[in-house]
């Protein structure tokens, strides 16, 4: 690139008195002074959370109210900081969802360890764990910072489902594939 010598013009008299510049500056700050304020007043006003935000990991239920997690422990295995601990449990056979066979007996996510990477959500074959919108997680003790199963479902709520995988499996079991 060619070198372009720039001519440095000497300051004019008006510029050397500083006055036009000061007046221009005062005008600018006045404009900012009367303009509406930019602040989001946090606890009352909340920011809009963009889609795909990775907040606190939660467990979700399907629209029929069935807990989706089957305690396969893939998330526990993949979790880089080892924040997840699952105690697998069995579902009684006479239960309406008995054919799913397994559900977590206890599910703990230690939020002091969690790094919000979202790998648990990515690895989950059941679409049962989601990093949702909650971004502030506080507590006074270490115990409080561990999200247990009940709390995880409370945070997660119900998300829409397009597959109803286990309903289809049950239908296939009962009627064969002809129906579908």
């Amino acid at each position, binding site marked *: 690139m060619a070198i372009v010598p720039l001519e440095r013009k000497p300051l004019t008299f008006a510029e050397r008195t500083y006055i036009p510049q*000061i007046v221009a*500056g005062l005008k600018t*700050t006045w404009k900012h*002074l009367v303009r509406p*304020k930019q602040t989001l007043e946090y606890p009352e006003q909340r920011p809009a959370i963009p889609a795909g935000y990775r907040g606190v990991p939660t467990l979700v239920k399907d629209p029929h109210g069935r807990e989706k997690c089957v305690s396969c422990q893939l998330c526990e295995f993949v979790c880089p900081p080892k924040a997840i601990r699952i105690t697998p449990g069995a579902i009684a056979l006479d239960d309406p969802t008995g054919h799913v066979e397994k559900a977590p007996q206890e599910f703990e996510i230690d939020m002091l360890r969690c790094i919000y990477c979202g790998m648990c959500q990515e690895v989950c074959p059941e679409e049962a764990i989601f990093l949702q919108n909650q971004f502030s997680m506080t507590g006074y003790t270490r115990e409080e910072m561990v999200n247990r199963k009940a709390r995880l479902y409370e945070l997660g709520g119900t998300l829409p489902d397009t597959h109803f995988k286990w309903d289809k499996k049950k239908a296939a079991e009962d009627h064969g594939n002809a129906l579908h």
Partner: protein
Amino acid sequence: MVEFYLQLNPVVQGVLKGLAVILVIFPIGGACSMAERKVSAWIQGRPGPNRAIVPWVAWIPLVGTFLQRLGLFHVMADGGKMLFKEDALPGHVNKFYFVLAPIVAMIPALTTVTAVPFGAYLDSAGMVVPLVLANVDIGLLAVFAVSSLGVYSLILAGWASNSKYPFLGGVRASAQLISYELSMTLSVIPVFLWVNAPGMEPTMGLGRVVEFQSQPGFWGGAWFLFIMPVSAFIFLTSLFAETNRQPFDMPESEADLVGGFHTEYGAFKWGLFFVAEYAHMLIGSGVFTLLFLGGWNPLPWIPLATFVGWLSSILPIAGHPIFVGVLSITIFLTKVLAMIFFFMWVRWTLPRFRYDQVMEIGWKKLLPLAIANLLAYAVGIALLQS
């Protein structure tokens, strides 16, 4: 009540006046510190401090919320914090002078208020009588003489702190304040040359200056801002330098000197420096208003007496001395507060000058300008009044 006051021992009268001054200056200092935070916030697009609230005020429907949004209770929270936090005394300081410095800062700040008239009332003959705590004939000279003692507190604080940054701050303060005092004094001489016309009793009183700006006619009613714009400009610029405000706050200069002369100070002693700075600003703005902005006259070419005449033709009670007094004080305070807003507005607009620029502006620009201005007006006034 006035008779009862005048019967009191002069010492008791003095103490009462002193208490009145403290009771006015300290709350205004606190309000100014809050105004500073609010103005800076607004200029930066923030709402500023607006959370603190006392529960029983929060119960008042609209007013409570308004006061909360205004940040009024942050003033009290700040003041309370300043009073009750630990007042650490560093081990390496010269203790006597270290404690003395903030006291020395307060004394001139509170003393000068007494010589500044802050309002006026009409006596039974219809004459405008200025309201002032100590009606001394040397007026402005007293203000200048006492307020320039304020620099000693900065030097003392800088030296007694026994640490490099405060020391540099103190040195800067002394050099800067002395440099700008010259231009400041020279800039007001034309005003007093004009005011002390031949055949009048000579005075340096600020009341006379306002009286001169309340005369009938085009030239009589014009504020000195219009007659002597250069003087007003020099005085205002020097005022910024004298009160250590941006862009001239070299003694404090937190970017390069940590906190300047008050680096080692905290809690109440630091608060005293702060109040002293605001008191200086307040008095400086007051003097500027009296000299160049017509004092307690509501608008240029509309003196207080005329204004009161119009009001009393609508509202008969308007001629009462107390009403006129309150009205004039309100007008004067409005102008002073507008000036203080201007100080803050400038502070959040301009960056700080470099130290060599401060010296160059002071000695090479303002001082010659002030001398030229004085000579021009001296010749002009001599020709006009001869």
